[in-house]
């Protein structure tokens, strides 16, 4: 469905040269929900913008259904981190959701149907006539999600969509995204710097290294499809997986090369050995305030 091959992006300008992404290769299958996790500043947004056709890569390519992405593809919708700046403040909620559909050339009746349905899906049917700035942050991000849903995308790209909302809203929104994914069968690539969120949401987690950015590991999340905030997060398997991802990111920050064969189950077996885990957690690592590192049974 989505193929990223040898992607590299170097920003150049005003004498500074930033290699945001060095060499990324991975695949997202049709109908998959994949979470991409990596430390802040490692090029996640850059990667997503390349995948959405908003940015031209310096090297490598992105293929959507076998075709090379050169501009924003029609079947792809984007949910930005900055929800407050992504909705048009001069339009009411329903108009915001409807605008891309108008552009798509859909008829009025069909547009209304899609808008109503999308707003209902995110629980905002009552807010159709409100302006975005009259809503809370979480509600605004719901509107942005509704806009993406109404667009009927085959691929949904989400860039740290819940980084700026409070914990309770965040939990609700996570469940919303999982629910929508199971209901609608879209392909979702969800970017986050929150390890718990990545493991809770994803069917698969792709761990990026710190810059120079490469794929450090890909990990299948073998939690049951039916997940809920209360039970999933205290399940032993959840703790194992998040600990493993956490270790990978910590190691990445210290520049240790990944294991020779980043075979998921293999690596996990090693991660299970208690002494090693302790050593890693206690190790003197420069703290990254953006990576949430609360102890496993956090909720």
């Amino acid at each position: 469905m989505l193929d990223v091959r040898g992607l590299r992006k170097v920003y150049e300008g005003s004498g500074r040269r930033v290699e945001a992404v060095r060499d990324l290769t991975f695949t997202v299958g049709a109908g998959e929900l994949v979470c991409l996790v990596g430390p802040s500043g490692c090029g996640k947004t850059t990667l997503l913008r390349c995948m959405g056709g908003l940015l031209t890569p310096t090297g490598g390519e992105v293929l959507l259904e076998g075709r090379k992405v050169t501009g924003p593809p029609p079947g792809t919708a984007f949910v930005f981190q900055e929800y407050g700046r992504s909705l048009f403040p001069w339009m009411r909620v329903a108009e915001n959701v409807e605008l891309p559909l108008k552009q798509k050339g859909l008829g009025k009746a069909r547009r209304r149907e899609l808008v109503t349905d999308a707003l209902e899906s995110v629980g905002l049917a009552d807010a159709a006539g409100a302006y975005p700035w009259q809503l809370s942050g979480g509600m605004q991000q719901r509107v942005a999600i509704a806009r993406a849903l109404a667009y009927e995308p085959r691929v949904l790209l989400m860039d740290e969509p819940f980084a700026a909302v409070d914990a309770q809203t965040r939990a609700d929104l996570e469940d919303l995204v999982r629910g929508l994914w199971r209901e609608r069968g879209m392909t979702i690539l969800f970017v986050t710097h929150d390890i718990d969120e990545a493991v809770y949401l994803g069917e698969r987690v792709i761990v990026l290294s710190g810059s120079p950015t490469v794929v450090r590991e890909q990990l299948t999340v073998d939690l049951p499809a039916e997940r809920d905030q209360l039970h999933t997060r205290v399940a032993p398997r959840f703790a194992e997986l998040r600990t493993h991802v956490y270790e990978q990111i910590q190691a990445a920050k210290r520049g240790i090369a990944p294991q020779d064969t980043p075979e998921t189950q293999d690596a996990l077996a090693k991660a299970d050995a208690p002494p090693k885990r302790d050593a890693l957690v206690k190790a003197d690592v420069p703290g990254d305030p953006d990576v949430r590192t609360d102890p496993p049974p956090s909720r």
Partner: protein
Amino acid sequence: MRHLLLRLGYALALPAVLVAVWWLASDDSTDVYRPPLRTILETFPDVWTGDRLRSDVLPSVLRLTGGYALAAVAGIAVGTVIGSHRRVRAVCEPVLEFLRAVPPPVLVPVIMLFAGIGDTMKIVVIATGCVWPVLLNTVEGVRAVDPVMAETARSYGITGVARLRHLVLRSASPQIFAGLRQALSVGIILMVISEMFAASNGLGFTIVQFQRGFAIPDMWTGILVLGLLGFFLSVLFQLLERRVLGWYHGRRASTRRSP
């Protein structure tokens, strides 16, 4: 209802005081050039008859409307082009700064040379004066379009005319309106000045005529009419602005409440 009355009270308080002061201070004036307000008001209905409104106020208002509309359309159009292209901006900016620095009334004799002394000249004078605030504010507004919104529009295929209509112009509209507001006062001034230079009718012309004929109270009534016209246009402008920029004022109020 009470709220409305209170607001009306606030709005009218200061004008009432000023008129009262004028009235009292001028009541026993024997100076020919500063007649009592009472005399001016008594003269008013005699001077500003329906005929006169039609023959002098209407032409002025039409010229103002024409010049202002021309300036608004040209200013927004050219401003949008300059604001959206970095290269065009780099080329145009110095020239714009120079042209803006020329005081518009100076243009009247120049424009008379090639536009004659008819209505065209007056409309062109008003337009050339009004266009700068609109143009420069539009450039700033268009430049300041939020990059996240621009990217959102792009990712949803909102390009071309739709992008201009739903994103660029709407996002720049607070600045555009600030420019239009400045242009309105510039426009009224230029309307009067251009009519003082060479004209056979219009408010500016009439006021100068009265002054030359030593009809001093009549001249003062003309100035009152000008003031009222300016006030009326400003109220009209505010009504329009409240409609178009409702979202902007609402958002500002809501961010002030919760910083």
